[in-house]
């Protein structure tokens, strides 16, 4: 497989995952405000912070209002953190790699972009927003289902899955970092709605029922962190994503350096114990994991995408 094709498949995997995760995060945040009493409304701008997109926001808007935050994350096609940007990029990646994908993959992403273009303008009101975001999540899931059920387990599959799981691990750690910080910070003032906020955090990473099934109905910081970082069976936990990277990369040629690196992050996470980590140290830990993921991406590009003349 051409390096260029592999790289586009990898990015198709990343962008689709990013679109889905962004939609889920925004959607859960929207539900949160319905549940909390007037006066304790959470900060909309936290959504922008999750993406480290403060600069992107400043390029387009002045005031951090609910509308502006949604405009940025949903429909600003020129902002890399928006759903519109992610889906369009995924479409362009799939346009040039459709020969490596199952029949129907191109039609599906094409149809998804048509849906997005048609509904974007009307998707900003609170009511329509939820419908739009849910549809985006469902369409992304449908696409993943299509790949899982009909793409041969070869190079194309491996590169899409690598992209998808690096992105997923990255998003989950970002959401945890900002979410935990905010909740802990505001502990004093909003203690009565704390369980709701923890649940929202789980919802944002699609872990609510999975958490309940394996940990029970009580939610708190340590349990959540343990679960979302270290669950061996939950497919969106950080460690699970890393296992997938390991599993997929071991199918690829010239993979030793990459595997060693992924395993070193896995070990770091296994050593993590939420109860023993203070808030400042948690942020430092999350940053380390994030750095590790960035290095994972760099190493992946170096190994499979930039095979220069030797």
């Amino acid at each position, binding site marked *: 497989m*051409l*390096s260029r094709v592999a790289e586009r498949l990898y990015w198709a995997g990343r962008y689709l995952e990013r679109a889905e995760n962004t939609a889920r995060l925004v959607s859960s945040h929207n539900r949160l405000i319905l549940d909390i009493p007037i006066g304790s409304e959470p900060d909309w701008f936290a959504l922008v912070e999750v993406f480290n997109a403060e600069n992107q926001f400043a390029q387009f808007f002045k005031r951090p209002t609910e509308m502006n935050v949604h405009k940025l994350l949903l429909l600003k096609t020129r902002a890399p953190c928006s759903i519109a940007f992610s889906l369009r990029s995924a479409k362009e990646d799939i346009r040039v790699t459709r020969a490596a994908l199952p029949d129907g993959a191109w039609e599906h992403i094409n149809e998804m972009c048509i849906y997005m273009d048609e509904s974007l303008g009307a998707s900003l009101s609170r009511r329509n927003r939820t419908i739009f975001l849910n549809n985006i999540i469902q369409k992304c899931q449908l696409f993943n289902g299509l790949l899982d059920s009909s793409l041969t387990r070869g190079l194309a599959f491996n590169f899409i899955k690598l992209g998808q799981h690096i992105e997923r691990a990255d998003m989950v750690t970002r959401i945890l970092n900002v979410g935990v910080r905010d909740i802990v910070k505001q502990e004093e003032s909003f203690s009565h709605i704390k369980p709701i906020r923890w649940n929202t955090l789980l919802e944002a990473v699609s872990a609510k029922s999975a958490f309940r099934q394996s940990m029970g109905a009580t939610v708190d910081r340590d349990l959540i962190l343990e679960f979302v970082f270290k669950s061996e069976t939950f497919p969106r936990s950080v460690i699970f994503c890393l296992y997938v990277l390991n599993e997929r990369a071991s199918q690829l040629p010239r993979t030793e350096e990459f595997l060693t690196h992924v395993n070193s992050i896995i070990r770091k996470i296994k050593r993590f114990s939420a109860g023993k980590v203070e808030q400042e140290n948690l942020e430092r830990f999350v940053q380390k994991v994030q750095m590790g993921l960035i290095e994972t991406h760099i190493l992946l590009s170096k190994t499979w995408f930039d095979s220069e003349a*030797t």
Partner: protein
Amino acid sequence: MDLYKPDKVYDELITKAGRSRKGGTRLVRWLKKESPESIGRYSKLASLAVREMGISYAIYSEGQNIDREWPFDLIPRIISAKEWSYLSSGLLQRSRAINRFLDDIYNEQSILSAGLIPKELILSSPNYHQECKGVSPRHGIWAHIGGTDLIRDQKGNFYALEDNLRVPSGVSYMIENREVTKRLLPDLFANYSISPVDDYPARLYEMLKSLAPLNIRKPRIVLLTPGIYNSAYFEHAYLSQRMGIELVEGSDLFVDSENNVNMRTVKGNEQVDVIYRRINDEFLDPEELDPESQLGCRGLMEAWRHGKVAIANAPGAGVADDKAVYAFVPTMIRYYLKEEPLIKNIKTYLCMHKPARDFVLQNLERLVVKPINQSGGYGILIGPHSSDSQRRYFKGLITKNPENYIAQPTLSLSTAPTIIEQDIEPRHIDLRPFTLYGKEGWVTSGGLTRVALKKGSLVVNSSQGGGSKDTWIVEETV
């Protein structure tokens, strides 16, 4: 349905007496049986099938929606197997002669020394590349893939209109058109004995394989595309998929210090032996041709001259496809093959010659004037349909740059029944068969029939309102 009666022009299906031509009986019977409503319905089903099968072509634009549906007319165009057998011999003959000519002008130049073709016409052509001199590609073949446009005059005689030797396109639509017809007219299809067309990718693959450098046993073949914004990208993707070869862009390739061409893959670098290129000569190699080119690969020409890689068509082959050189194809056939041309050329006036020029300038309203180095039906004057000011404009162009123009008599292209809304009307058509030449020559069964969908129009190019038809070569008893 009632069918029209052709008057002045030759119709492919219906004689002047209103009867069906040989081979067309069943088709005519079917058309007569259908109602206008059902014909309209068939036409809708056909465009639905085209959309579902994702048959598209791109229009150059910066916008988002760059795919256009391929315009297709469901009524097939029929040619008898006997007539086709003669035409395909004629096409192979042309291809043989043109390849001898190309090998000659880049080596001995005997045809120029013999004074049979004006030296300056060839050597000063922008498509003649000094960089190709002295090269001898395998089998002595330069133009491996050709698309010759054939038309029929009012008497029913076929003529060769032009030989496309740079990057001729359309063959994927020939194959897809057949798929759509089979889907929609299975009964009609089953009652005919029609030559298949879907063996083209396999033939193309075999031909490309035969070009590989001698010491390579399992050659790696790639298709080089300019990318998704090219109008024929659909075809590039289609053919590479059907042949099971990589679809590469210039940036995927590099030439190493030993002049080997490599492609970058996830396994590392892999050597490339044959390149089926769908980019024009000038973009092939920024080192020697257009330095601005982002589409090609640095050092490719040098690798090709060293025989490390085969390129189809060979760089420089385009010199035989301009409209002035066209006029000399019969000369080439007589000179190299010692044969008489089987397919006639259209009388061509080279404006570079004064007597011809004077004739052209005085008879503009009866002639078609074409620039020598343009394709796609752009920049031409169709005399009988032109205005005074257009003719004045062309008079100026020809007087200023006579060597850039040729003129030909206006031919009334033949017509074929075509679905227009719920009606069946005659529309002008041409035919582009495709010729392959590697170790051996081969011609498609039929080719791509292109239709000028506008009433009375003679322009069949898809970029200018043209459509297409499936072409049936039929073994006919009735």
